[in-house]
């Protein structure tokens, strides 16, 4: 897990993550967030949400909580971290700004205080599980007997209390 990023691996694989992305976009749009979503070349989705009070413009560019929904070998990876609205990478002019680390820490603090990162991850996970249930016969593969680490996605054995890969408690 990154310093300014919340991540989770959900052991659900969907052939199309668009309905999940739409659920996340609708959820935050209903709360009057500015939202932006676009598909990635790896069949995932990149979503930005932003609203005054938590996010601010830095050097004229609007900051946001950027949510990545990506298919992985063991399921679906969900990440939520600070970025620039509608952009998948931090522009160089921001990344090289001497006060950017201070601003990043402060904005991330506001996000954590509001539990916005957890809210975004939970929303995406709930949608993933719902979509998997609805399409279990044809489009999704969910194996409830398989357990994976919620931090790194490593497959766990039935007796594992901690992930042998990263040490996260089961």
């Amino acid at each position, binding site marked *: 897990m990154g310093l300014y990023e919340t991540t989770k691996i959900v052991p659900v694989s969907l052939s199309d993550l668009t309905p999940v992305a739409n659920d996340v976009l609708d959820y935050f749009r209903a709360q009057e967030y500015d939202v932006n979503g676009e598909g990635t070349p790896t069949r995932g989705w990149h979503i930005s949400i932003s609203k005054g009070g938590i996010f*601010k413009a830095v050097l004229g560019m609007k900051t946001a909580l950027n949510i990545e929904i990506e298919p992985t070998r063991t399921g679906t990876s969900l990440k939520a971290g600070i970025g620039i609205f509608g952009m998948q990478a931090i522009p160089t002019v921001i990344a090289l700004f001497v006060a950017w680390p201070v*601003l990043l820490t402060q904005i991330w603090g506001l996000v954590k205080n509001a539990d916005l990162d957890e809210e975004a991850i939970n929303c995406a996970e709930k949608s993933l599980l719902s979509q998997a249930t609805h399409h279990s016969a044809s489009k999704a593969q969910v194996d409830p007997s398989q357990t994976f680490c919620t931090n790194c996605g490593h497959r766990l054995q039935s007796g594992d209390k901690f992930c042998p890969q990263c040490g996260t408690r089961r």
Partner: protein
Amino acid sequence: MSKPWFDPETGILLLDEYVSGTDSFQRIMKDGTVSDQEIMEQSHKVVSLLKELESRLSPEEKLLVTDALCELSVLYVLERHRTH
């Protein structure tokens, strides 16, 4: 004119907003290129401001500003080191 360093409501640093308003930053953003001449001019401007600041501050204030500048620089280096 007073320039608060932090937003009174959110506590977030406002330095970037003052940077956005400087002529030198706007000029660089406008043409997207940085010339050797611009680097030299900006460097001279920073040195000139630091010298003026040094002459005006009391010893206690100077110590505080020195610490702030150094710690900001340390944080920047740490963050860059972690990113790359």
